[in-house]
């Protein structure tokens, strides 16, 4: 039993429905469910709609593939999880080959109704010449919980990743961004709004800059209520021609809010590198192991 959406280029390859879960092309959902229109940021051209109405005991799966040269995807996605449900989603977006010069843009909205819980694993794997621009917004209603992991170990040439989370009363989010920049221009922007009392937000950024990568990250928490938040931003520079710019930002609009941050950018430790080489690993193997450890692989 599964609920699945798979799109290749602009064509839907497969949709699998399951009891308690509605999976549709987003344009069809726009036409069919008037209530859903308020969540779509625009009338969709392509993309998926997943509505979890009942508790399911399997993970949701979506896969969006670029398989042909010079494809420009422009997706509008919506995932809605009804109150009290506990859901896991594995979301994959990727290019089937390295040199397709594809463009993948996505406007996504994820809505967690009251007391809902979502573990969202977002995996990206791109070709060296792709442009990728996901813009996701999470709406966390009262008491809902979001565990979000974005992992991109095969980056595109250009990545613009924007993530916004709105936490209502007692809602909590734990976001983790793991990005390995290789000859890439990357801009990451994540903002968590602690809008309700006792809302919580933790953001963990792990960025690696390799082979002339230019990485810029803005990580921000805005506390408008007595919530708690923490930013943990770390960068690792692997070569001298890459740059990483990390900007943690805290905005506190409530005297009882508690928000903190830590940020650091380091390079590969010579001590660790030499230790691993004296365990028989070649220099490149040793660097890959240290980077893998840093990214939590």
């Amino acid at each position, binding site marked *: 039993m599964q609920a699945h959406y798979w799109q290749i280029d602009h064509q839907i390859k497969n949709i699998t429905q399951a009891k308690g879960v509605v999976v549709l092309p987003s344009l069809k959902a726009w036409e069919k469910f008037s209530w859903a229109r308020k969540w779509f940021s625009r009338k969709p051209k392509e993309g998926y709609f997943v509505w979890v109405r009942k508790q399911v005991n399997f993970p949701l799966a979506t896969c969006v593939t670029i398989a042909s040269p010079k494809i420009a995807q422009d997706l509008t996605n919506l995932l809605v999880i009804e109150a009290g449900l506990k859901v896991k989603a594995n979301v994959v977006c990727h290019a089937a080959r390295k040199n397709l010069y594809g463009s993948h843009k996505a406007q996504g909205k994820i809505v967690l109704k009251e007391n809902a819980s979502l573990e969202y694993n977002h995996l990206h794997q791109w070709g060296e010449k792709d442009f990728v621009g996901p813009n996701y917004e999470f709406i966390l209603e009262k008491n809902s919980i979001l565990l979000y992991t974005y992992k991109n170990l095969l980056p595109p040439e250009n990545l613009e990743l924007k993530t916004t989370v709105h936490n209502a009363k007692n809602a909590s989010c734990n976001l983790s961004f793991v990005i390995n920049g290789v000859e890439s221009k990357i801009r990451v922007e994540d903002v968590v709004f602690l809008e309700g009392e006792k809302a919580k937000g933790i953001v963990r950024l792990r960025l690696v800059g390799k082979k002339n990568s230019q990485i810029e990250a803005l990580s921000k928490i805005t506390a408008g209520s007595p919530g708690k938040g923490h930013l943990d931003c770390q960068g690792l520079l692997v070569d001298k021609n890459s740059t990483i710019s990390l900007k943690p930002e805290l905005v506190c609009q409530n005297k009882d809010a508690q928000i903190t941050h830590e940020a650091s950018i380091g390079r590969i430790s010579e001590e660790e590198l030499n230790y691993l080489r004296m365990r028989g*690993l070649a220099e490149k*193997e040793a660097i890959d192991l*240290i980077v893998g450890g840093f990214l939590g692989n």
Partner: protein
Amino acid sequence: MKLLEIKNLKVEANGEKILKGVNLKIAAGDIQALLGPNASGKSTLAYAILGHPGYKITEGKIFFQGKDISRLSPEKRVKLGITLTFQNPPAIKGVKLFSFLKKIAPQKIVNKKLGLAPSLLDREVNLDFSGGEKKISELLQVLLLSPKLVIFDEIDSGLDIKKTEKVAKIIKDELISKGVAVFIITHSGQILNFLKPNLTNVLVEGKIVCQGKDYRKVLETIKKYGYERCKKCSLSTGRRKRGSNASSLLAN
């Protein structure tokens, strides 16, 4: 043919001359010790043998099984069978010890006889390891590398007598009994009582100034007179008399 032969080795690190002409021979199956005061160059000698890029050989050569390895990368030296346990190994964050062992020795199986707590394998390499855990982890790593020579850099430092005995037993059972040569660098000399080296070297100010076959006499002399006595040894001044040796000198 000697397993390891070092001829007139001079080494610099950070622009400082540390080893000032070291000569050393280790045969297969040898148990040799290296004693010396702090900052005498003991760890530098170990790093130089392993080819640590931070330690520059300015003169002299290192031969392993007759081959000049002075310019070989550390990883190639390890492949030849030269290994080192570190005194203070760095933590490798995010890398579990078990996957690290699989990486350095994919075909080998972790020897459970070493008394390694299984939970240690699931922890990040050297991160928050206790002194004893580090030593066992280091030992385990070199055992998996199928060594011909193992250099132990202060393997007994920070260990109580019981743990030192345990580590010594592993070295005896897993290495010495299998004909692997061991070179034990020690400041305290505590572990030598369990391993009983056949030759003990004393390194002072970048030179091996003394070699004795009876490690107890070397230790007793150092305990009684300090390393100052070693400096006056005829080997260190180049005024070595025919027929004299460190043991006889130390016995005086």
